């Protein structure tokens, strides 16, 4: 267990105070990933928008891409989604929720040491299509599934 050295936190706090960070605060955040945080893609308001920002063109549905999720989510705050690609040479997997204000939920770089099989939990504001987008060898493949979001509890 290691935690952030205090001096850098202090620095970031000061930076934030000066208003140098953007609304999403990513400009000066340290980067672990190879790529910069893809603001344009995460700002996408629809699947088409986000795909465009990700450079995905000529996408095609593929049986080698799987989206595993229940048909109905009892609560939109937590919707488990598993994304699997059997496409050889998969390098990226994205999970997109068409009707969310921020359509792109997650973007995984699939390196040589990784199996193209990831599970996470997403928020869904309403019933929507959820798409798994896979990039392999410069080509793009998708699988889409509608997940219904229901109102649970007493609504009070």
């Amino acid at each position, binding site marked *: 267990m290691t935690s952030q050295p205090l001096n850098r936190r202090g620095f970031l706090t000061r930076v934030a105070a000066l208003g140098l960070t953007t609304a999403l605060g990513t400009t000066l955040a340290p980067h672990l990933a190879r790529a910069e945080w893809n603001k344009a893609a995460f700002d996408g308001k629809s699947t088409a928008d986000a795909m465009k920002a990700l450079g995905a063109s000529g996408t095609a549905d593929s049986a080698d891409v799987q989206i595993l*999720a*229940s*048909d*109905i*989510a*009892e*609560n939109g*705050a*937590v*919707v*488990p989604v598993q994304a699997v690609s059997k496409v050889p040479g998969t390098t990226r997997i994205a999970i997109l929720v068409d009707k969310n204000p921020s359509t792109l939920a997650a973007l995984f770089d699939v390196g040589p040491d990784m199996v193209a099989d990831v*599970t996470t939990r997403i928020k869904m504001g309403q019933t929507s299509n959820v798409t798994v987008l896979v990039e392999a060898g410069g080509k793009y493949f998708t699988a889409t599934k509608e997940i*219904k979001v*229901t*109102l*649970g*509890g*007493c*609504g*009070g």
Partner: protein
Amino acid sequence: MTRRFAVGLATCLAAAGLVAGAARAEGDKTIEGIEAYREALKDGNPAELFEAQGEELWKKKAGPKNASLETCDLGMGPGVVKGAYAHLPRWFKDTDKVQDAESRVLTCMTAIQGIDVSKYVAAKWGSPEKDELNAIATWISGMSKGDKVAVSTAHPKERQMFELGKRMFYYAAGPHDFSCSTCHGQEGVRIRLQDLPYIASPKGAAAGWTSWPAYRVSSGQMWGMQWRLADCFRQQRFPEPIYGSDVTVALSMFMAATSNGATMNTPGIKR
């Protein structure tokens, strides 16, 4: 219960017959979907994050006496946490009261750490104070995971608490005439898509008692039984039950003792 329910609604029941076939097919699909959803959630319960916090709080020196809670007696002797939750609520000699895990922790915070717990009792749900209490209860409950519920009603005060809880369960009041039993007084019904355990039955009591504290995915919050009960009362349109008060312990006693023999599955995960 079934009878009084049926009387006034006979006409409506006839209407239901008309469409039951179509509704059932649709309903089955819905239930299947919900089952799959619940199954997927079980894989990683964020309650674990709160258990870790609770353990840390238990072991951390705090309060005017700068002491940890590690000598707190939860009924199995000072410092024994393993298995304690499965035997709570119970009567404690030092307080001459029946206490659940959460009210007992308040006693220990007062006696061992010298903390004035009134601020914890008064604090709103979701406040840092209540979050601490919830985390501690979560950890304590996890230390009984897999144990059989074994709550005693042998002591007269335990017996009394059980009976008072049972009576409270059926107490109807407020603008909606709701009691606990309005929703939890019969087998196999639900609110919206939420299954409602019939808490006066051993199976239903177990479904409730053995799965709280639970992580609520709807709010991303960790709820102990005290919070669970408080929110039931809120939706019953009742005033707010005071944290750790007899009325909350009595209901817990009724539920826990009714579920005796069931296996603790805490902390749980819920919608």
